[in-house]
C-alpha cells in the first residue's frame, strides 16, 4: 500500500468505505518512517503507541461513533503542541522528559474526530528558526536533497509529509513556520486567521502571533483538518468563530470566477530569486485562466515587517519562556547553591544559543528606558501593517506573493548568516503581524530541483477564500503531487 501517494481525505474515505483500516495505515506509516529515518523528522515516534492509538481509533469507527471525514487517519503533531502523557519538549533540552498532563485543544479535537496522533515532529528549538537546525534532537533534512534544510520551524512536519513519513501534520506558525517549510519541501501548509484555532496547549513562543495550522498534501486536506481543529475554545479567550454556514471542506468549490488577486510589486523585486518569481507568476497565470483577475497592488509597509516582528516576537518570548526555570519540570541544573544559581544555570544550560539570543533581545526591548523606543514603536508599526492590509483588501480578494524569496538553502549556511535568515522571513511575518490567513502551495522547482512555494494571503476571517483559491490552483496543476525519490 502506497500511503505516500494518497491524501488524508482519500485515506479517510477508504477507511470509511472499509477498504482500509486505521491499523493498516499505521503499519504502512511505521514502515515508511523506518525507510526515511535519515530526514530526522520526528522527536518521538513510538511504533507501539501509534499502533495502540490506531486500534482505539478503529474501534470508535467500528462502533459507528461520529467522527470526521479524516477518522482513522494518523496525524503527526509538532513537538511544541501538548499531547497528554507524551513527550512535548519544543525540541529543547530545557523540557527534556516533560509530558504534559493535558492535551492541547487542537489535539483533543483530533482525538474526538477519531484521528490519531502518530509521533511528535522535530522543529527549531521553541519554534525559533527558519531551518529546523536548532533542535536539541539534531537538524531535520530536506527529503528533496538531504544537504538542504527543510525550512522551519515546522521543518519536521513538512519534511515528513513530503517524504511520505507522515500523511499530514499539525504545525505552528509564528512568523512563517508552517508556510515556509511547506514551500521548501513542496507540500501545502496553512496558517489560519489568528484566533481560528485554539492555542490552548501550544507551548507559546509569541502569544500574539502564534497559530496552529495544518501541513498536508493539498488544500483539500488542509480544509478537512481545519474542520476538525477550528472553533471557539473556552480555554482560549483569543479564539474567534468564522462563518459556520458551510464547513471548510464544503467551501472547496474550486470556483474563483471574478476573484481579484492583488500582486504586490514589493514582493517581486530585488532579493527574490528569478526561479521563485517565475514559479509564483505561473500560479497567477493559471488562476487567471480559471477566471480570476490579477491586479498590481502596493504593500509599502512590508519592509518594516521583519524588524517589527523580531521586536514583538522576542519580547513576548522573553516573558513566555521565563517559566522554564528548573523549579517545576524539565531540565534542572545540578549542584546549584542558591535559587538564583538554580534558575541561571538551568536556563543557561537548558536553552540553545538561538533561543538565548532571542530571550536576551526580547528582555532588552522591554527594559525600562527602551520600551518606548522599541516595543511601543513596534506595536504602532503592527497597527500600521494591519491597517495597510485592510486598505489593500479594499481592492482585491487575495494577495499572492512568494512564500520565501528563495528555495531551501544548504544545511549550515543560514546559521552562519543570521541576518540573511531573518530577512528571508519578509513575506511571511507581516501575515502574522496582521493576524491574516496564509496558505503556501507548491508551484514548481528551481534549477537545483528544489521546490518553490507561492503564498496566498486573505483578509482576516477569509480562511475559506484562501483555501479555495489554493484548491482551484491544485485542481488544474500537479506540483503538489510530486514527491522526492527516497
Amino acid at each position: 500500500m502506497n500511503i505516500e501517494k494518497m491524501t488524508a481525505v482519500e485515506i479517510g474515505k477508504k477507511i470509511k468505505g472499509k477498504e482500509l483500516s486505521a491499523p493498516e495505515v499505521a503499519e504502512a506509516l511505521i514502515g515508511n518512517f523506518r525507510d526515511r529515518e535519515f530526514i530526522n523528522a520526528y522527536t518521538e515516534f513510538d511504533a507501539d503507541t501509534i499502533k495502540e492509538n490506531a486500534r482505539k481509533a478503529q474501534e470508535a469507527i467500528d462502533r459507528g461513533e461520529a467522527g470526521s471525514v479524516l477518522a482513522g487517519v494518523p496525524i503527526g503533531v509538532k513537538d511544541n503542541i501538548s499531547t497528554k502523557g507524551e513527550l512535548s519538549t519544543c525540541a529543547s533540552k530545557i523540557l527534556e522528559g516533560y509530558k504534559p498532563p493535558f492535551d492541547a485543544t487542537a489535539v483533543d479535537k483530533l482525538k474526538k474526530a477519531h484521528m490519531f496522533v502518530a509521533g511528535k515532529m522535530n522543529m527549531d528549538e521553541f519554534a525559533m528558526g527558519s531551518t529546523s537546525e536548532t533542535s536539541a534532537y539534531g537538524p531535520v533534512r530536506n527529503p528533496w536533497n538531504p544537504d538542504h534544510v527543510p525550512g522551519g520551524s515546522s521543518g519536521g512536519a513538512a519534511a515528513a509529509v513530503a517524504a511520505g513519513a507522515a500523511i499530514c501534520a499539525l504545525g505552528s506558525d509564528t512568523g512563517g513556520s508552517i508556510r515556509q517549510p511547506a514551500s521548501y519541501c513542496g507540500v501545502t501548509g496553512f496558517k489560519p486567521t489568528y484566533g481560528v484555532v485554539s492555542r490552548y496547549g501550544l507551548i507559546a513562543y509569541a502569544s500574539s502571533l502564534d497559530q496552529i495550522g495544518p501541513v498536508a498534501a493539498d488544500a483539500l486536506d488542509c480544509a478537512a483538518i481545519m474542520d476538525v481543529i477550528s472553533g471557539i475554545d473556552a480555554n482560549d479567550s483569543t479564539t474567534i468563530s468564522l462563518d459556520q454556514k458551510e464547513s471548510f471542506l464544503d467551501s472547496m468549490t474550486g470556483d474563483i470566477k471574478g476573484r481579484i488577486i492583488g500582486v504586490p510589486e514589493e514582493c517581486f523585486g530585488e532579493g527574490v530569486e528569478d526561479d521563485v518569481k517565475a514559479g509564483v507568476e505561473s500560479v497567477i497565470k493559471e488562476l487567471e485562466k480559471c477566471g480570476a483577475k490579477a491586479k498590481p497592488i502596493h504593500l509599502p509597509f512590508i519592509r518594516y515587517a521583519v524588524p517589527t516582528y523580531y521586536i514583538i516576537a522576542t519580547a513576548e518570548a522573553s516573558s513566555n519562556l521565563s517559566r522554564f526555570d528548573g523549579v517545576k519540570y524539565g531540565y534542572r541544573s545540578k549542584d546549584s547553591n542558591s535559587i538564583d544559581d538554580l534558575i541561571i544555570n538551568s536556563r543557561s544550560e537548558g536553552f540553545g544559543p538561538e533561543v538565548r539570543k532571542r530571550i536576551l533581545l526580547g528582555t532588552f526591548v522591554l527594559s525600562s528606558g527602551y520600551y518606548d523606543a522599541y516595543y511601543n514603536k513596534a506595536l504602532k508599526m503592527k497597527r500600521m501593517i494591519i491597517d495597510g492590509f485592510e486598505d489593500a483588501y479594499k481592492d482585491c480578494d487575495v494577495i499572492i506573493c512568494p512564500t520565501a524569496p528563495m528555495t531551501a538553502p544548504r544545511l549550515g549556511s543560514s546559521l552562519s548568516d543570521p541576518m540573511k535568515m531573518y530577512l528571508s522571513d519578509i513575506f511571511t511575518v507581516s501575515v502574522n503581524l496582521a493576524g491574516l490567513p496564509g496558505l503556501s502551495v507548491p508551484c514548481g522547482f528551481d534549477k537545483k530541483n528544489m521546490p518553490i512555494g507561492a503564498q496566498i494571503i486573505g483578509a482576516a476571517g477569509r480562511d475559506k477564500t484562501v483555501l479555495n483559491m489554493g484548491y482551484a490552483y491544485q485542481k488544474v496543476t500537479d506540483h503538489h503531487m510530486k514527491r522526492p525519490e527516497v
Partner: protein
Amino acid sequence: MNKEWEMVIGLEVHVELSTKSKIFCSCTTEFGGAPNTHCCPVCMGMPGTLPVLNKEVLTRAIKAGLALNCEIEKETRFDRKNYFYPDLPKAYQISQLYKPIAHDGLVEIEVGEETKQIRIHEMHMEEDAGKLIHSDWDNETYPDYNRCGVPLLEIVSEPDFRSAAEVSAYLEKIKSLFTYLGISDCKMQEGSMRADVNLSVRKKGAAEYGTRTEMKNINSVKAIERAIESEADRQVDLLISGEKVRQETRHWNDDKRSSYAMRSKENAQDYRYFPEPDIPPMIITDEEIDEIRRNLPEFMGEKKARFVDRYGLSAYDAGLLVQNKKQADFFESVVHEGADAKATANWMIGYFAKIMKDLAIEFEDIELSAPRLSKLIGFVESGKVNRKDGIELLNMMIKGEGPDDVEKYLEEKGLFLSNDNSELEKFVLEAIEANPKAVEEYKAGKEKVVGFLVGHVMKNAKGKFNPSVVKDAMKTELKKQ
C-alpha cells in the same frame, strides 16, 4: 514625633476578593487545604496553558472602583509583570499597569471630629502568587501553589496621609466599604487584606517630599500604626543628625518593634511590563457601569444617617450598629417585626455585646431569629416579663439554645408577670405586717426601705410581679399606714 516635622504617607492596599473560583481558572479560592491541591495546569503556569478571566472578578472590581468614587476605565486590559521567583510559576504576574480598571478616586475618612479626603491614584486587578514553605526537617524549601491565581485588588493612594491615625481610619473605611459590598472579608490577620506603607518625612511647611521608604505586608492595623510611628521617628532622627534617608524597602518586625532594610533602590527590579497578549482588552459600557452603580448597597455612612433620621437613634448608637452590615441589617429586621427601635438598639449595643464578649464570639457567628427576638424585647419592655429573665432567655438564644416559640416558653416557665391586683395587695400587706420596723423607718422619712419591702414581696411571690408595679403598690399602701 518631633513637632517641627510631618510624615507623608501613601498606601498600597491589597485585598483578596472572596470569589468562589480563581481569577483565571476554575480552581477554588478556599483558604488552606493540603499544599498544591487547589491548583490546575492553568494556575500552575504549565507550558501551553492560557488564562481566562473570571467575569465575577471584573464585576467586583467595578463595584469596588465605584465605592471608592473612581473613574472606571472603559477599555481596561491586563499587563504582565515579569520577575523570577519560585512562588510565581509563570515567572510573570498578570496585573494591570497601563490601563487599570479604576483611577482617580476619593475616600472620605473621619479622624476624631475631622473628616479628610484621601485621593486614590488607581486600583487594579491582579493574581496572587503562591508561597514557599521552608521545612526544618530536611532544610529544603517547597512551593505551595494553592494561593496562585487568587484574585486581588490593589488600591494605590496618593501620598495624602499625615498620621498613623489617618492610615488606620482609611484601612477601616476600605474594610467597611468592601464588606458592605460583599466582595471581600478584608481580614488582615488571614492575609485577605495587606498594606504596603510608603513613608517620608519633611519639615512642616516644606513643599518638596523627602526620600521615602517602603514597608511591606504588615498584618494588623495596630502593627501598621506602630511601624509608622517608628519609621517616622527613625527618619527624623537621621535627618536631624545630618544623615540621609535611603530609598529602600524595609521589613517591620512587630515583635521587636523595629525595622531593617531589605533591599535598596539600586537593586530594584525592572519588571518589564507589557500588555498581556493572552487576554483581549475588556470593553465596559456605560450601561454596565450604571447597572452596577444602581445595585450598589447603602454604605455605612448613609446607613448611619438613615438610622438617626428614621429610628431616632443617637449618632453614637447608630454608628455602633452600622459597624457591621449583618448587625445593622438584623437591627432593621427586628424593628420591622414590631420591636421599639431605641429599645432594640439598646439591647443590641448593651446586652448583645456583653453576652458575645462573655462567650468570645462575633456577631458573624450567631444565628438569630428576628421575629422571636422582637417578641422577647416587646415582652420585657412592656413590663410583662422580668428583665433579668429576658436577658437569660437572650443568652440562650445567642447560644442557639432558645425555644422555637418564645411566648409558649415564657408561659410554660411561668415567667409572665401577674396582673392580679388583689393577689398583689395580699403580698404587700403581708410584707408590711412582717416588717413593722421598716414601716416605722419609712414613716420617719427613710424612703430607701421601700426597696427592701419590694424585695420581700418579690421573694415571696417568686418574681411573678413586675417590680415597678410592686413598688407603686407598696408606696400607696405605706401612705395609708
